[in-house]
């Protein structure tokens, strides 16, 4: 993840604490897992400001039923609908669960 983006996320997490949730839109399992790892356990590449900084932010993916079920169906269809057909939802969620279960 871009170093500047890591700084922004760290600042928001520090300002708002436990109210903050991260929702991802990564297209594959590897990028979803690395991004989730960065905002939950710290930057796994040890290159950015979140290296060694476990923010422990709750992290979800826009494809998860728990998220989708709270969104207006017409908006979801317009903004996400086509991509659902091309993404490997199961593998993406497996990657997220690995991060959640690692803490």
């Amino acid at each position, binding site marked *: 993840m871009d170093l500047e983006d890591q700084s922004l996320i760290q600042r928001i997490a520090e300002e*708002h604490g436990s109210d903050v949730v991260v*929702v*991802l*839109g990564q297209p594959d399992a590897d990028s979803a897992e690395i*991004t989730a790892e960065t905002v939950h356990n710290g930057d796994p590449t040890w290159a950015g400001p979140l290296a060694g900084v476990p923010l422990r*932010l709750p992290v979800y993916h826009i494809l998860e039923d728990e998220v989708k079920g709270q969104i207006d169906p017409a908006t979801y269809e317009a903004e996400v609908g086509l991509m659902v057909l091309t993404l490997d939802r199961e593998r993406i969620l497996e990657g997220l669960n690995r991060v959640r279960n690692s803490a």
Partner: protein
Amino acid sequence: MELKGKKVIALGERDGIPGTSIADCLKTAGAEVVLTLTQCYV
């Protein structure tokens, strides 16, 4: 997890779902989007 009233970081990707699309969706759930990012790996 209830999105309503949460402060959300919409962290999308250009080759997946862009941050702006995630943000538009989450607003309809009553979440407050505090940061929208779209990552790009080339």
